[in-house]
């Protein structure tokens, strides 16, 4: 067994240990420590193993490592293997997943300390990590899909972690069901690929599409079908609605699953399947436009939200849109680059938000915060660094990746256009604005805390602040490691339109200017008297109501899909199908048998003579019949 298998199995072992032993252990004095040790230790072991595997990859001149664990199924001699594959892209993803994952596990020790489901929490978190590593390490689309579904399951379990609250349980269900819609597309894509190529190994699929002549299947069809799956998992239009609701889970879960890792699975999948998308012009255009529109609309919604986690959730949807924009114009390396920087600063932001919520005894409404900078300084500083990073201020991590995205959105030979740049730039401006708005409302100005919360404000324990500092440092310097350059031999960047090649410097300057403009705008609006924001809000009350209501998309889906489904279920399936047809048939048959028995039962008089007489009659009848027909 090489380290590839061990990377994935370590968190699974953690899940099994904590999951099976938790209820027995927790009441005991050493139980809590055991859960912590297993829950955090095995992900860290996984991270170390990933580093070792990465070292091996480098030593081998970046030739992909591959290992077949066993053959799952063989159909007509074509095997479906559980095989792991470790190349440059996998290395980047696995390092993010295990690295950021380990940090968030450590953070959770402090955050979940007093929760009665402590062991269950770590079991689920480890389960998530296992499936995420399956997703990232799988060689075949089938293994990827197992991980893809598995992280969905873990996400469901963790969103509904506090399942006693019906609203939170419903949020978990919503996430699961919306994802299922996307998965239908993903499955269809897999079927089409398997029918055409007879294999689901991703390296072979890419090779088949890169070869000339290509396979006898439309790359655009496959690309679009797989992308439908990605819109579900990575929260893009039209299936993004589950992600904001997913904030019902514990905050470290939001950081790990719903910001840093799981939701980026769609971006990873598109980058991994770049062989298909390189030859699918239409699908790529679709991805770019869905991405940029999602980025834009989510950003507009984020501007008007008042729940600290909801702002970050819409921000995540928006940043994922940026990643898909990059993937759509062929800059897969850049998409992964943004995925990588986003993992750091968004995890830092979510964990910072968790620290704020922790300090305020559960308060999430930014209208009831303010003036926290002095009271929880470490949280404030790290949050501010991450905010500057996501806003794209140099030299922080977000600046590098966002600038690259804007550049390729404009200049890529594969679909770069002015409009993509324009919308993306506007979105970048709004991103800076709403993030600094969040920073100001939370940490500056006068305190608007409840008396109860104000009395208990306290900085979080070291296990939380330490993680925040590490992530803030990574958010600050992460951009200097140029991921597109690392990935270039595997995911070459698209060509540049010749007459636009001079536009790079202006775009860099514009990108910085937009970040600063957002900062200044937020400072002007929220830095001064509170009346200014209120007066402005009153002026655009109509727009504000639409944005606060999130464009009423949930209501629209409910009206167009939810209610008709309920109506059909109630009237057609329940009343007509179930009650009338099925119940009716069964009850009718039972009634018929009962009535017949009522009639026939009268023959059972209990008199022996009567039976003998009947036997005689039967005998005579049989004789007579035999006589007549003989």
């Amino acid at each position, binding site marked *: 067994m090489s380290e590839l298998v061990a990377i994935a199995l370590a968190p699974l072992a953690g899940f099994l240990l904590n999951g099976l032993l938790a209820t027995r252990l927790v009441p005991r004095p050493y139980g809590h420590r055991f859960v912590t040790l297993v829950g955090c230790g095995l992900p860290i072991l996984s991270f170390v193993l990933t580093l070792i595997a990465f070292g091996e990859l480098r030593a081998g001149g970046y030739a992909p490592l591959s290992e077949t664990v066993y053959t799952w199924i063989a159909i007509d001699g074509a095997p479906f293997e559980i095989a792991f594959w470790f190349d440059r892209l996998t290395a980047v993803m696995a390092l993010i997943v295990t690295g950021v994952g380990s940090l968030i596990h450590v953070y959770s020790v402090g955050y979940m300390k007093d929760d009665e489901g402590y062991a269950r929490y770590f079991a689920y978190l480890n389960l998530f990590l296992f499936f995420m590593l399956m997703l990232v390490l799988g060689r075949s689309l089938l293994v990827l899909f197992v991980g893809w579904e598995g992280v969905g399951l873990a996400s469901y379990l963790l969103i509904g972690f506090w399942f006693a609250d019906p609203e939170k349980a419903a949020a978990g269900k919503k996430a699961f069901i919306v994802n299922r819609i996307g998965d239908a597309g993903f499955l269809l894509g897999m079927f089409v690929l398997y029918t055409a190529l007879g294999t689901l190994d991703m390296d072979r699929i890419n090779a088949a599409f890169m070869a000339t002549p290509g396979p006898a299947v439309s790359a655009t069809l496959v690309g679009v079908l797989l992308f439908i799956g990605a819109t579900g998992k990575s929260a893009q239009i039209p299936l993004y609605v589950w992600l904001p609701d997913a904030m019902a889970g514990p905050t470290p879960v939001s950081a790990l699953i719903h910001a840093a890792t799981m939701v980026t699975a769609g971006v990873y999948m598109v980058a991994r399947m770049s062989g298909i998308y390189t030859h699918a012009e239409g699908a790529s255009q679709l991805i770019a436009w869905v991405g940029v529109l999602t980025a834009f609309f989510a950003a507009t919604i984020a501007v008007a939200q008042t729940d600290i986690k909801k702002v970050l959730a819409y921000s995540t949807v928006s940043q994922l849109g940026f990643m898909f924009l990059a993937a759509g114009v062929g800059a897969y390396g850049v998409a992964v680059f943004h995925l990588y920087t986003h993992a750091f600063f968004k995890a830092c932001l979510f964990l910072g938000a968790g620290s704020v919520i922790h300090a305020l005894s559960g308060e999430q409404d930014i209208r009831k915060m303010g003036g926290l900078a002095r009271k929880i300084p470490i949280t404030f500083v790290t949050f501010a660094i991450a905010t500057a990073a996501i806003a794209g201020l140099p030299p922080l991590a977000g600046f590098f990746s966002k600038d690259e995205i804007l550049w390729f959105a404009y200049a890529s030979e594969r679909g770069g256009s002015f409009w993509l740049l324009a919308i993306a730039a506007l979105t970048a401006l709004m991103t800076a604005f709403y993030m600094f708005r969040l920073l100001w409302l939370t940490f500056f100005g006068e305190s608007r805390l409840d008396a109860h919360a104000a009395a208990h404000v306290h900085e979080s324990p070291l296990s939380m602040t330490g993680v925040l500092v590490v992530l803030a440092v990574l958010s600050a310097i992460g951009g200097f490691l140029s991921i597109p350059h690392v990935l270039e031999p595997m995911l070459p960047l698209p060509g540049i339109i010749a007459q636009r090649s001079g536009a790079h410097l202006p775009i860099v300057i514009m990108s910085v200017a937009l970040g600063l403009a957002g900062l200044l705008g937020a400072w002007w609006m929220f830095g001064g008297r509170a009346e200014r924001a209120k007066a402005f809000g009153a002026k655009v009350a109509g727009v504000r109501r639409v944005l606060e209501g999130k464009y009423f998309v949930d209501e629209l889906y409910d009206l167009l899909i939810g209610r008709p489904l309920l109506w059909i279920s109630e009237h057609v399936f329940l009343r007509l199908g179930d009650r009338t047809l099925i119940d009716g048939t069964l009850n009718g048959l039972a009634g018929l048998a009962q009535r017949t028995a009522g009639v026939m039962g009268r*023959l*059972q*008089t*209990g008199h*022996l*003579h009567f039976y003998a007489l009947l036997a*005689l009659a039967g005998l005579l009848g049989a004789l007579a019949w035999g006589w007549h027909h003989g």
Partner: protein
Amino acid sequence: MDKTQALLYLALTLFALGLCGVVIRRNLLVMLMSMELMLNGVNLSLVTFANQMGAAEGAVLVFLIFVVATAEIAIAIPIVLLLARRRRTLDADAFVDLRG
């Protein structure tokens, strides 16, 4: 009327008498006896046919029926005795508890 025919008529009469006994009489013991009569009517016809055909199978079959009839009566008599002890009667019409 030759011997075979006469014997067959006798067998028929035995069987019919037995049948009438089962259908008409109410006493359980008499009913059992009537059944024996019917069996013996059948036995007689078997022996007669065996004699006519010059084959032994029919006669052998009779012994089988004797065994079965003995076994049957060995079970039936105790049942009738138990019933009679419970209800103090041998009237078949007293036992109509399974009326539908």
